C-alpha cells in the first residue's frame, strides 16, 4: 500500500500504527534518525570499555545493577537478558498487535537515545515487510520496566541462536528457519542491545493504539445507532440544540450533539410527539454520556500519541548533556502513563455500551417504545424478535463491569524490591481490547434493533422522511441484515453487524474525532 512510512522517533501516529500493523504498509528508517542512532551507538561502544559503570552495559540488571560485568561479557549479557526474560505465558498475541509492538519498538530506537545500531531497526522493519511475526505469549508483563517478557520473545527472534518461534507465510516455525526463509540475517547481540529491545511499554502501547483506533470508530457507530433509536422512539430534538450544549461546553458533548443533529436532520419522526416534553435519559442524555466518553478517549489518545514517539529504555544516552557520563538512568520504561489511560478507556467504552443497552431495552419493551411491536418481532413471520438479543447485550455490558476493574491501580513488588512499584499497564490494555470487543457487539445489537424499529415506522407511514444520516444508516445496516437470507439466527445477525462495525463502513456517516492523526 502506497508510500513507505518513514520513522524518525517523533512523528508516528495511531493511523500509521494501524496502516503497518493491520494493512501491511512498509516502513523505512529516516536518514537523520539513522545518523543520530549511529552517534549514540558509538558512545555506548566506547563506554562499555571504560570503568564508569553504565547500567546494563557493564552491570547486571534490576537489583543486580550492584554487580559489575567484565566488558568482554557485554554481548553475552545482552543475549542472556533476552533469553532469561522470555518469560511469557498464556495464549499468543494476535499478529496485528505483535506487528504494532515491533513498529513501536523500532520507532523508540529511531529516537537515537538508546545507543543501539540502526541495524536493529532495519531488521525489525524487514521482518515487518516480509511478514515474519514472532510468537509472543500475551501474559506475564507487569508493564515495568516495560513489557520485558513480551519484548524478550521478540528479541529471541532477532538474536542469533537456537531459540524463538515465528509465523511466516501462515506457518509456525523456528525463528532461525523463518528468518532464513525470509532472507533476513539474525543479529549477534552487542552491548546494551538486550535493554534496547526489551525496555519499554511497547506492548501496552501497541494494544492501546489499535484499541483507540477502534474506540473512535465505535463511538461513531454508537452515535449512529443512538440517532436511529432516538428517531424510532420519536424522540425530542431540543435536548441536542447547540445553544444548550454551549452552556456546558464539554467538547465531547458538543461533538456528539452536533453529530446527532446532522444524523437526524430533516426527520419527520423527531419531534412528532409534541405532548412529550422530554425523553428518558438513555435518549436525552446521549450527548452527555457519549460526549464524556469522547473526552476520555481524547485523553487516552493524547497520552498514547506521546508514548508512540517516546524513548523508553534505560539508560538513555543524551550526547548533548554535559559531563563524561552521557548515560542517564531513569524510569522511562514505566507503563503508568499508558496504563491509566487504558483503564480510563475501559470505563469510557463500558459506558458507550451501557447506554446503548438501555436504549435497546426501551426499543424492545412494548410499554416504553411508543407503540413499536413488543420485542420488535416481525409482523410477517413468527419469531421472538429481539427478546433474547437484549439479554445478550445485558450479559455483555455486565461482563465489561468485571473487566473494568482498574489494573493500573494494582502493583506488586518485584526484583528483590528494586522494582517495588509496577504499572500493570499491559493488563489494562488487554482488558480494554476485550471491553471494546464486547461493546462492539452491544452496538451491533442496538443497530439490529434500530433497523427493525425504523422499518416498522416506514411500514406504518410509508412515505415518512427519515433523518439525513439515519436514512443512510438504515439502508446500509439493513443491507447487512437482509443479505443474510433464510434460516439465520439472532446470533448470525449480531455477528454480521459486528463485522460491519469493525470494518468501519459506518464512519463516513458520522464526523470523527480529529485527534487520531
Amino acid at each position: 500500500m502506497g508510500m513507505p512510512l518513514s520513522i524518525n522517533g517523533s512523528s508516528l501516529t495511531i493511523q500509521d500504527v494501524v496502516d503497518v500493523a493491520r494493512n501491511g504498509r512498509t516502513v523505512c528508517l529516516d536518514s537523520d534518525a539513522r545518523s543520530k542512532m549511529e552517534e549514540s551507538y558509538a558512545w555506548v561502544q566506547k563506554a562499555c570499555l571504560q570503568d564508569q559503570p553504565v547500567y546494563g552495559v557493564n552491570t547486571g540488571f534490576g537489583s543486580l545493577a550492584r554487580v559489575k560485568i567484565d566488558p568482554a561479557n557485554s554481548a553475552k549479557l545482552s543475549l542472556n537478558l533476552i533469553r532469561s526474560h522470555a518469560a511469557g505465558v498464556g495464549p499468543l498475541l494476535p499478529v496485528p498487535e505483535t506487528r504494532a509492538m515491533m513498529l513501536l519498538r523500532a520507532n523508540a530506537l529511531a529516537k537515537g537515545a538508546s545507543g543501539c545500531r540502526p541495524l536493529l531497526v532495519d531488521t525489525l522493519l524487514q521482518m515487518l515487510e516480509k511478514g515474519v511475526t514472532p510468537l509472543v505469549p500475551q501474559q506475564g508483563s507487569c508493564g515495568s520496566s516495560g513489557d520485558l517478557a513480551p519484548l524478550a520473545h521478540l528479541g529471541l527472534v532477532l538474536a542469533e541462536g537456537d531459540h524463538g518461534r515465528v509465523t511466516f507465510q501462515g506457518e509456525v516455525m523456528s525463528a532461525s528457519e523463518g528468518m532464513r526463509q525470509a532472507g533476513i540475517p539474525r543479529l549477534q547481540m552487542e552491548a546494551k542491545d538486550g535493554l534496547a529491545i526489551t525496555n519499554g511499554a511497547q506492548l501496552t502501547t501497541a494494544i492501546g493504539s489499535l484499541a483507540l483506533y477502534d474506540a473512535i470508530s465505535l463511538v461513531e457507530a454508537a452515535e449512529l445507532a443512538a440517532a436511529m433509536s432516538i428517531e424510532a422512539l420519536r424522540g425530542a430534538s431540543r435536548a441536542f440544540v447547540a445553544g444548550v450544549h454551549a452552556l456546558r461546553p464539554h467538547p465531547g458533548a458538543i461533538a456528539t450533539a452536533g453529530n446527532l443533529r446532522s444524523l437526524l436532520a430533516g426527520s419527520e419522526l423527531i419531534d412528532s410527539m409534541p405532548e412529550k416534553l422530554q425523553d428518558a435519559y438513555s435518549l436525552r442524555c446521549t450527548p452527555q454520556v457519549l460526549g464524556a466518553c469522547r473526552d476520555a478517549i481524547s485523553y487516552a489518545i493524547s497520552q498514547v500519541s506521546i508514548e508512540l514517539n517516546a524513548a523508553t529504555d534505560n539508560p538513555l544516552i543524551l550526547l548533548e548533556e554535559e559531563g563524561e557520563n552521557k548515560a542517564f538512568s531513569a524510569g522511562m520504561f514505566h507503563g503508568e502513563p499508558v496504563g491509566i489511560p487504558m483503564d480510563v478507556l475501559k470505563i469510557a467504552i463500558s459506558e458507550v455500551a451501557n447506554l446503548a443497552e438501555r436504549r435497546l431495552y426501551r426499543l424492545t419493551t412494548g410499554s416504553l417504545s411508543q407503540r413499536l411491536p413488543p420485542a420488535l418481532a416481525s409482523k410477517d413471520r413468527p419469531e421472538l424478535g429481539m427478546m433474547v438479543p437484549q439479554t445478550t447485550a445485558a450479559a455483555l455490558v455486565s461482563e465489561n463491569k468485571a473487566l473494568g476493574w482498574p489494573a493500573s491501580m494494582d502493583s506488586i513488588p518485584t526484583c528483590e524490591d528494586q522494582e517495588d512499584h509496577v504499572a500493570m499497564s499491559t493488563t489494562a490494555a488487554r482488558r480494554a481490547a476485550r471491553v471494546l470487543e464486547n461493546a462492539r457487539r452491544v452496538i451491533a445489537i442496538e443497530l439490529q434493533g434500530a433497523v427493525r424499529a425504523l422499518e416498522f415506522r416506514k411500514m406504518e407511514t410509508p412515505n415518512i422522511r427519515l433523518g439525513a444520516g439515519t436514512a443512510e444508516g438504515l439502508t446500509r445496516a439493513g443491507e447487512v441484515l437482509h443479505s443474510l437470507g433464510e434460516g439465520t439466527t439472532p446470533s448470525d445477525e449480531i455477528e454480521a453487524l459486528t463485522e460491519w462495525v469493525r470494518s468501519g463502513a459506518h464512519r463516513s456517516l458520522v464526523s470523527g474525532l480529529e485527534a487520531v492523526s
Partner: protein
Amino acid sequence: MSIALNGQTLSTSDLHAIAHGESVVLSDAARAQMRANFESMPEGPSILEEKRHWLVGGFASELTADELCRTFILGHCAGVGELLPDEMVRATMAARVNVLATATTGCRPEAADVLIAMLNQGVTPRVPSQGSVGAAGDLAPLAHIARVACGYTDRPAGLPDYRPNPKEALALINGISMTAALGAVAVTRIERILDCSIAACAMTMEAMGADAGCIDDRLLQARKHPGGIEIGERLRIWLEGSAQVVPNQGANAFSIRAAPAVMGTLVEELCCTRTILERELNGSGDNPLLIDGEWIEGGNFHGAPVAQALDSLKIALTQLATVSERRTFRLTYGQLSKGLPSFLVRGTGLNSGFMLTQYTAASLASECKGLAHPAAVDTIPTVQHHEDHVSMGPIAARMLLEITECVADIVGIELLLAAQALDLRMRGIGFDAAGEFMEVDCVTPAPRIAAAHAVVRQHIDYWEDDGVLHPALAAAGKLVRTGEILSENGPW
C-alpha cells in the same frame, strides 16, 4: 464404563470425565421415572403453549406445536463471541441431561436420549460463550445446543430423529446448566491446582529450611478451621522425614507461616462450592416443574446460588495465587532466602537467572485480582420487565476458569523455583550475607519431596546459567495441569 445419569448422583468429577470424552447412559430408573412423570401431565396446554401469544403475537393461533418449538429455540440462538471449548459443551449437555433425569420437568426420556446420543457419538455443537445472564437459565448457549438436538440445523447422520414437544423445548434451555458445568470443570481443575500447590509449598519450605511450628497439628487444631488443619496435615505428609523443616528455626514469614490459613480457605471454599454445584447438577433447574401431576411455576432457573459460590471461589483461588507469588518472591530474593543466591543461579549479574519468573507470577496474580471482581453483584433488567433480576452466573464461571489458568501457571512457577532452590541446597551451593559463594553441607531432602523434585527434573533441567525461560515455564505449567507431579496424569 459409561457414567449413568440418574438425576441424583452426578459429581463434579464425573462431569469433568464426561467433558473429556467419557460416555454416558440414562439410568433405567430415571428413564422409567421420566416416562411416569411425562404421563402424569395434566390435560390442557403446557406453559409454552399458554405463553404463545406473548411469544409470537399475531401468529399465536396459526402456529403448530412443532413450529412453535422451532421458533422458540431458534429465537434463543443469540449467543455471541468466542466458541466454548468442546469439553465445556460436552459438560453442559451432560449437566442438562441430568436435570431432565430428575423426572420433574415433564419431559419424555427421548429428550435426554438425543443429548446422550450426541455425547456418545461425539457430536458437539458450536456454542458461543457469551450472551447468557444466567436467569432464566443459560438460555442462549443451551439454545445453540438444542438447535442441533432438535434437528433445526444441519447435523451429522445417526442421531435420533427427535422433535420436542413445547414443554421439552422449554426444558432443554431453561436452567443454568452451562454455568454449573463450567463451574464443575473448574472445581476439578482447582482441586488439582490445590494439590500441586501443597507440593510446591512443601518444596519451598524444604528449600528454605522453614520452621515446622506453623504446621504443628496441635496449633492448627487449636484454631479449629478444618481447611487449615487439612493443609497442615498434607504439608506434614509431604515433609515427613525432613531434616530441614524442623522446630525452632525462627518464625517464618507469613507466606509460609500462614500457608495453612490461606490455603485452608480454599479447601473450605472448594468444599462449599462443590456441594452447591452438585446440588445444582442433581436438582430440578427448570420451570415449571411437574410434581404430583401438577404444574408448579417458580424460579428454579435462577443462577444466584451458583453465581455466589463461584464468585467466592474466585476470591479464595486468588488468595492461593497471591500467597504462592509471595513465596516465589522470597525464593528469588537473596536477602530473604537463607543463603540462596539472588534469582537462584550462580554467577548472578551476568545471569539474571529466574528473575523474570517472579514478574510473570506477579502479573498473573494481578490479573486474578481483576478477574475476581464479583459478577453476581450486578444485575440488569431484561425481557420487557419480566426478568428484572438476573444472576450473571455464567460470567462468574468464565472468569473463574480464567483465574484457574493464571493460577496453574503461578503454582508452576513456584514449583520450578522450589526445585531449583532445592537443587542448590542438594549441591551444597551457598551464599554468604554479601552474596559471595561458599560451599555448604549438601542437603538430603525428605523422601516425598525428593520424589516430586525428580518428576520436575524429568521435564525441566537444573539451570547453572541463563536459559530461555518460556519452555521451562510452559513445562512447569503442564506439570500442574496434568497432575504429573502428584503421580497422576489426567486431562486438564
